[in-house]
């Protein structure tokens, strides 16, 4: 089964709590919590190498993930259109990353649509996040 109800519930509860909360700090999850939720939702273990490949590859659109975040997001990236600096994506280099489930979901939704023309699957999110977590100082 691809979507065990327990995992979906976990993600929904975490995201719902974050959305309902007025203070971003009120619900602090860890990137590992999110990874577990996405992995459970995917019903498979995450593959960091596949996540890296997804991150740097073209998915048929003008931009790739790496276009704005850089091929190795252990440092600031630069928005491909506006040039605005984008803080590092890897949690070890930016502790705010992947600690707010609603925010993570919002950006996956937007950015997957920009680079792939669709939403990402839970497996793709888990792969990418698992790779980001391998990036260490």
């Amino acid at each position, binding site marked *: 089964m691809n979507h065990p109800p327990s995992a979906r519930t976990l993600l929904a509860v975490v995201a719902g709590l974050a959305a309902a909360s007025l203070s971003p700090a009120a619900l602090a999850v860890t990137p590992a919590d999110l990874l577990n939720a996405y992995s459970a939702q995917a019903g498979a273990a995450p593959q960091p190498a596949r996540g890296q490949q997804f991150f740097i590859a073209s998915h048929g659109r003008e931009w790739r993930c790496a276009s704005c975040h850089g091929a190795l997001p252990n440092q600031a990236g630069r*928005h491909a259109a*506006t040039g605005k600096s984008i803080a590092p994506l890897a949690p070890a280099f930016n502790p705010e990353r992947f600690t707010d489930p609603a925010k993570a979901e*919002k950006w996956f939704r937007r950015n997957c649509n*920009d680079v792939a023309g669709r939403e990402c699957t839970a497996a793709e999110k888990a792969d990418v996040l698992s790779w980001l977590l391998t990036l260490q100082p």
Partner: protein
Amino acid sequence: MTPDNRPPSGWLATCVLAFAAGMGLCMPACADDLRAAPPLPAYKAECAACHIAYPPGLLPAASWQRLMTQLPNHFGTDASLDAATVTALSTWLTANAAQGRRATPPPAEDRITRSAWFIRKHDEVPAATWKRPSIKSASNCMACHSGADRGDFDEHNVRIPR
């Protein structure tokens, strides 16, 4: 208190300011200082993630309203937001939108950079300058106006990078 009971001083000041603005008698800072709008934390958090927090006074209300209904395709990018945040941002942007000469007509494609006043104020900047890697686009206010994210577009602080 009915309108008839209001102290007249407020109305008088408004009229004098409106007259001065209409006659172009403002101090330079009046035209280039857009810091008057009260900040909205959601605006910075949501919109300034990808570009500077453009002061709401740079576009007329009609443009902001159109942009806020088209966030899933925001100049080619998915900038979609939940409905409650869209409503809050739209209300704030509309309330603080451009007034007077800057408001009409709405610029082509609702782009700040297509506004008549924007084009006039930048008419001495050659096309090649805009394309420099350090500038990239006319939408990158901060490249030359280092106080742009605070609403400071004072001409004396402009520095065009190489």
